[in-house]
Structure formats: C-alpha cells, structure tokens
C-alpha cells in the first residue's frame, strides 16, 4: 500500500479547472519529484493533498485513509506537512516562535528541543536571527525558516514546493543535501516540486511530469533525466 495515493483528482479555482484526473502514488521512504512548467498545477496538487484547496472530484488517501474531505489541520495531524510556495512565514512572530509553531502538534518537549538544535545546526543564520520577526528576514532566510518549520513537525510525508526558490547556489545545494539526509536518516517520505528539474531528478527516486493539469509521464528519475523531450522542455539543454 502506498503511503500517499491520489486517484483521479480534479480541482478548480472558481470556474477554472486546473487539475484533470490526477493519479499518483508515493511509497513510504521515497523521494518523488513533480516537474512541469509554470502554471501546470504542481502547487495546486500539493494544496489539494494538504486540504487547503479541496478537490472537486477524486480521492486522496494517506496511510490508507481517505483525506480528501478533511480540513488541513486534521491532515497535518496524520503526519503530513507542507512547505508552501511563497514560504508563508508568520511575519510578526519571531523566528523561534515560527519554529515552535512547526511543532504545534507535538507533545514531546525533549524531542522538540533536539529538533530545534538540529535545525539551528542546519541553518546557523536562523539561530542568529532567532529573536527577530520572521517577516524581516531576507527571502532566502525565510525559505530556510519555512523548511525548518516543517522539519519541526517531524512529518512522515513532507511536501516541498520549490524549496530552492530564491536561495543562493551554495544554499540550494545544501537544501538538496538536507532533503536526501532527512530521507535517509528519518525515513521521511518526500514529495518535491521543483523548477530546478535536473537537481530535483538527481535527488529523487521517481518523478512525474505535469502538463496543463494532467500527468503526462511517470518514470524513474534517471529515465526522466535521460529523456530527450524532458531535457528539451524542462532542463534547458
């Protein structure tokens, strides 16, 4: 049984349908990447999974449980966590409080402390800025904060929406390393949406290609990397 499964999911904003019968599976321990042009509907898929944009039709199953009718907070409770596009830092809360909120549903103070140290170690700048309001961080710092906040939840499945956006090359590489690392060390399953398709495909096990709200291709990451059409369309070769 896959950890996450989407069956024929359709979604719309108002009267514009953006997802058409999306089906995909994510097995436990996998890193899956979702690539596609701007506006293909990648973020919308993540929002559907998290329950922010409820799908109009189709089913979403997490750990075998139907979640397409649940509100976001209950989905999060099941161990699914998203780093949304645009970061969504709580601007008036300090960096530390932002991180605490990531662990909102957790009740193990010791574990939370450890994880806090862990993310501070990953991103020392956050430690430096821990008493500063999140809204005043630079774009890249905010991205680091958003990822760290999600890590604080210790999710079973992590949804990452363009985590490298706005990050310096050095940090981007760091982020991908971290993705691999948490996947390895914590066995966190990851669904990754990324524009830097080559890096994403190198990191992921499998990938899906999305075009105009439809999945047009699904394969092992290596195969996709080698696919010429993909190279032309998404890798800028």
């Amino acid at each position: 049984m896959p950890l996450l499964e989407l069956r024929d999911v359709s979604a719309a904003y108002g009267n514009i349908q953006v997802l058409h019968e999306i089906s995909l599976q994510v097995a436990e321990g996998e890193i899956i990447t979702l690539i596609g042009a701007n506006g293909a509907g990648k973020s919308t898929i993540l929002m559907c999974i998290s329950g922010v944009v409820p799908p109009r039709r189709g089913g979403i199953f997490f750990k075998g449980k139907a979640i397409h009718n649940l509100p976001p907070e209950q989905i999060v409770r099941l161990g699914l966590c998203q780093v949304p596009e645009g970061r969504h830092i709580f601007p008036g809360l300090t960096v530390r409080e932002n991180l605490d909120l990531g662990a909102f549903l957790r009740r193990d103070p010791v574990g939370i402390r450890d994880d806090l140290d862990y993310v501070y170690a990953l991103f020392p700048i956050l430690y430096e800025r821990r008493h500063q309001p999140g809204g005043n961080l630079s774009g890249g710092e905010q991205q680091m904060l958003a990822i760290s906040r999600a890590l604080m939840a210790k999710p079973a499945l992590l949804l990452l929406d363009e985590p490298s956006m706005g990050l310096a090359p050095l940090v981007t590489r760091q982020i991908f390393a971290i993705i691999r690392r948490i996947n390895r060390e914590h066995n966190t399953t990851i669904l990754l949406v990324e524009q830097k398709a080559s890096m994403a495909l190198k990191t992921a096990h499998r990938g899906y290609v999305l075009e105009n709200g439809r999945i047009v291709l699904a394969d092992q990451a290596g195969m996709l990397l080698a696919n010429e059409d993909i190279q032309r369309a998404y890798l800028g070769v």
Partner: protein
Amino acid sequence: MEYFVELFFSGLTRGAIYALIALGYTMVYGIIGLINFAHGEIYMIGAFTALIAATVLSLFNLPLPALLFLSLAAAVIWASAYGYTIERVAYRPLRGAPRLSPLISAIGMSIFLQNYVLLAQTPDFIPFPALIPEFAALEPYAGVVGSSDLVILLSTALIMLLLSLFIKFTRTGKAMRATAQDRTMAALVGINVNRIIAATFVVGSALAAVGGLLIASHVGQINCFIGFIAGIKAFTAAVLGGIGSIPGAVLGSLILGLTESFATGYVSSDYEDVFAFSLLVLILIFRPAGLLGKTSTEKV
C-alpha cells in the same frame, strides 16, 4: 494639586473602564482583523445577564459575595455563548469574503442585538444593583477614589497581566497569534483555525462580560444601548494603543480616560470627546501604528 490628583483618579477609573472592554476588542480585532462593532453589544449582554441573574438570585436571599460570584458566572457564560454564536452565524460564513463584508455583518449584528434586548426586556434605563461591596477602609478617601473605582482598576491590571501571559506563553495563545497572521499557514501547521477563532471570541466575550458587570455596578444603570458608545471608545483606545497589543489596549484606554478627565477638568467637558479624538489623530500621525503597535517598515 489636590484637584489634579482627583482628576487623575477619575481619569484612571474611566480609562480602566474603557480598558475592560478594549481588551476583548483588541483580541478579536487582532485575530480576524475585524472591527467587531458587536463587541460593545456583548458587553451589554454581559451586563444584562448579570442583572437578570442577580434579580432572579436575589429572590433566594443569597449573601452579597455569592450573588456577585453567581451573577458574574452567568454573565461570563452567556456572553461567551453569544460571542461564540455570533462568530458562528455572522462571521464564519464570511471567511474569505472581502474585508468589509464582515464589518457590515458586524454592524447588522450590533443593531440586531440592541433591538433583541430592547424587545425582550425594555428600552428604558433600569437600575443595576451595587454588586461591588463598599470597603469601609476607603471611606475617608471617598472624595478621591471609591471602592468600585479601585476594584475596576485592580481587575483591569489583573486581567491584562493574565491575558498577556496567556497570549505569550500558552499553546493556544501562540496559535491565536499565528492564526492572526496567516490563516492558511496556521492550518498547515496543524492549528484548527476555526476553533482558535471561536476560542478568541469566547475569551474576548468573557472579558466583556466581566467588564459589563463591573461597569454596570459602578454606573448603577443599564439599558440596551450602552454597548454602542462603549464599543466606539474601546475601539478608539485599542487603536490608540496599537491594535492587537494587549498592553497597548490598556495603555490606550488609560490615556484616553486621562485625556478626557483633564480636558473636562481644565478646559470643558463640552469638548472632551473632541480632545480625545484629536489626541488620537495626533498620536497616529506620529506613530501610525499606535503607541505600542509595531512600526517596523514593511519588508518588500
């Protein structure tokens, strides 16, 4: 000098009265950014419930402290229930609507509640029993400060302290602040946004009810329209102090009360509200986010 002290204390009392209402106001405002015109009506409902409870209970010849406690409990319970229901009926369906729509809904709610109480009870002023006991020890200072003034001042200080601690340190408090800033993201970290907003209304309404009882007992009379002016004043005070800030609400209220008192004392009470509002304009010109509001430049 004595006159100054007298005016100072009357200003303080007035300010503390405003603060009792402004605290709940600023909480609700802080979380959904809604100028909740119905908050004043919740205060009125609280005061009325206290009166009704006190009248019913006084049939049983209870001692004053028991009467006070039970009326307070009734006021808090029902005011919270009304706050919760209003949120449920008039504001929750409007999440995601344009910013001004809930404002209109709030105005409608406020009109509705006034007239509901008017029809169910009476449009006239009715006497409110002195539920706050007179302290004999204060008798010599009666010219300056009365028992109810003191009780109001102390309650305000206590409530402010508890509320600040609650907001700053409890899980619910943090969830409230997070919800206030980014509702989608709050949901994405596992906060039940609807429940947190409802909780905020319940807490805010409970505070309004406490205020309702204390103030009505101090003033000695209520009718179904007292909420309106109270709401406006609380709103002013909350903005003055920096909306969403708990100590700000109290500070704003005290400044408002003192201004009015000194304006009356040294100039004329004809223009006390003019002074109050002018001060508001002046302060906002120099501190556009209120006294304790955050003025940091927006990050772009």
